[in-house]
């Protein structure tokens, strides 16, 4: 459907090289990365706003690398500046039909369906400046979809909105995507947005693709400590492999020997010895009072150093010889009587710990 092969784009000293991507029909692919990771550069090159040094961009099998913007077959919904301020909602939506000289009979049924689905019929005569943020984005979506694009590019379209509204629009986007078999390419730095909408994800860090895969794969199995950090994993512990047997590794973390029955399975020959990173999400840390028999295979004892109330979960910092974070509910904190200085034991299920090499180590 949409594919990018060996794309090379330069902006000043910033270069994105050998970028590959495939998005299937009806799929939502997310380009995920922090500011400065190259997401916008890629988007601009897809739109034809930045010259491509080498590589090809294809849509429905056609090489569109050198096509002008209006012939590429993309729809585009940016974060800001979506609607034409001098046109009412109805004229904004009808813009593509007029620009392409499409007969209204062909255009109207599709648009009517979109207007009903997004519940904007009451807004048609309104001017953009009278609309709320959420209404504007819904109109922006309808306008982009009314042009019946083969691929819809969404550049952080919901980031500036209120949390509840965002969730509502994610749901709407998912519904529209399923109903109309839309192919979407979403650009975002927001992990929740990516998780809510993505079928597949490309993680960009510092102008490099560091991981590509299904949403579940990327979120549950980050490939490098850098990806894990970006994906919000708090416990990324540097260690050294002391020993490896058929079932587990013995890893030294800050002088403490910890057996790790971890993923990837021990058949991974790259992890025989040397420095590694042990990666465990804070929500996977099992916490028990020091007296309770442990439910974990690898119990560690430690002392609570600090408690950070947050929403929806609280973060507990525990010193077990090294620093480790656990996420718990407020209810758990009260029930277990957790306080700074309390002794606790921690552990994790084998499948929730990961052993990783850093990107540099993988390159060596």
């Amino acid at each position: 459907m949409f594919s990018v092969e060996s794309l090379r784009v330069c902006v000043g000293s910033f270069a994105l090289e050998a970028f590959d991507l495939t998005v299937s029909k009806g799929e939502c692919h997310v380009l995920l990365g922090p500011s400065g990771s190259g997401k916008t550069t890629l988007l601009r090159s897809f739109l034809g706003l930045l010259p491509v040094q080498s590589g090809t961009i294809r849509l429905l099998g056609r090489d569109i690398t050198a096509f002008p913007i209006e012939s590429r077959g993309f729809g585009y919904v940016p974060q800001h500046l979506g609607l034409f301020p001098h046109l009412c909602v109805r004229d904004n939506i009808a813009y593509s039909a007029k620009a392409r000289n499409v007969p209204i009979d062909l255009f109207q049924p599709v648009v009517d369906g979109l207007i009903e689905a997004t519940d904007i019929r009451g807004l048609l005569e309104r001017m953009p400046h009278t609309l709320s943020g959420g209404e504007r984005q819904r109109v922006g979506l309808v306008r982009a979809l009314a042009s019946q694009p083969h691929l819809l590019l969404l550049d952080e379209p919901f980031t500036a909105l209120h949390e509840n509204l965002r969730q509502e629009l994610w749901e709407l986007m998912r519904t529209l995507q399923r109903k109309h078999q839309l192919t979407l390419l979403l650009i975002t730095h927001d992990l929740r947005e990516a998780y809510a909408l993505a079928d597949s994800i490309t993680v960009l860090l510092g102008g490099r693709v560091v991981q590509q895969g299904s949403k579940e794969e990327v979120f549950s199995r980050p490939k490098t400590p850098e990806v894990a950090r970006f994906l919000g994993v708090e416990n990324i512990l540097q260690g050294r492999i002391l020993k490896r047997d058929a079932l587990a590794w013995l890893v030294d973390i800050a002088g403490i020997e910890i057996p790790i029955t971890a993923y990837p399975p021990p058949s991974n020959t790259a992890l025989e010895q040397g420095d590694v990173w042990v990666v465990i999400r804070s929500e996977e840390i099992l916490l028990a009072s020091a007296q309770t028999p442990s439910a974990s295979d690898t119990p560690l004892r430690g002392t609570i150093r600090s408690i950070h109330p947050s929403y929806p979960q609280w973060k507990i910092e525990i010193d077990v010889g090294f620093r480790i974070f656990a996420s718990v509910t407020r209810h758990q904190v009260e029930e277990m009587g957790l306080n700074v200085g309390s002794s606790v034991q921690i552990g994790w299920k084998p499948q929730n710990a990961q052993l990783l090499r850093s990107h540099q180590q993988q390159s060596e």
Partner: protein
Amino acid sequence: MPSTLRRTTITAAFAVLILYGGLILSLGWFLEGAVFRGMLFSERSLFAIRLSLITATISSCMALIIAIPAAYALSRYRFWGSEAINTLLEFPIIVSPAALGAILLMFFSSPLGEWVQAHTVRFVFGFAGILLAQFVTVLGVAVRLLKASFDEIPVEIEVIARTLGATPRYAFFTVVLPLARRGILAAFVLSWAKALGEFGATVTLAGTMAMRTETLPVAIYLRLASADIEGTAALILIMVGIGLCSLYLARRLLQRSVDANRMG
């Protein structure tokens, strides 16, 4: 209690009013009702008024026809020579109007200028000379004002129009121009006002021939030169009246345009 900043800045604003208002009012000392009425309805004055209005309107329209595309190009594209053009926009402001007229006069005295006059129209000491002098004076200002206006319109909005199927030209006419409406009106008004008051370049290139190249500023100059103080004061008041009424009307139009942009 009003702040010192408020007091100081409002005082400065009133200083402007006192200066300009005082100057205009001081004309009253020399004004005689009968002379004013006679001047207002004299054939020669009516000619000067008509000539000024016609030439200022034509020259500022001509300036906008060139300035709109030129300003858009300077705002949107980086091309060879764009920096030089940007710098040259202030050329008519840097050189004095008389020098600008002299440059034009020298150009038409050169072989190329003579050829141009022989094959097009006569600029020196003619109606076309007034138009050209005003056009050259206001073009740079018009481009500068319009460029600022186009700079304020985000490129992204054109990109959106193009993803909706618009060609660059269609996006320009349906999105960029309507959004620049206010800037275009402002550029026209200021160009027109500047052309209406243009004297130095006009007098150098087109001369001071009564009932031929006698615009309002030229008429004022001729009255003053012949020591007709009452006539000069009357003509100045006529010119101030026309200019201020037009600018007031334009401000109202601009305000309506702003409201319309907000509404539609």
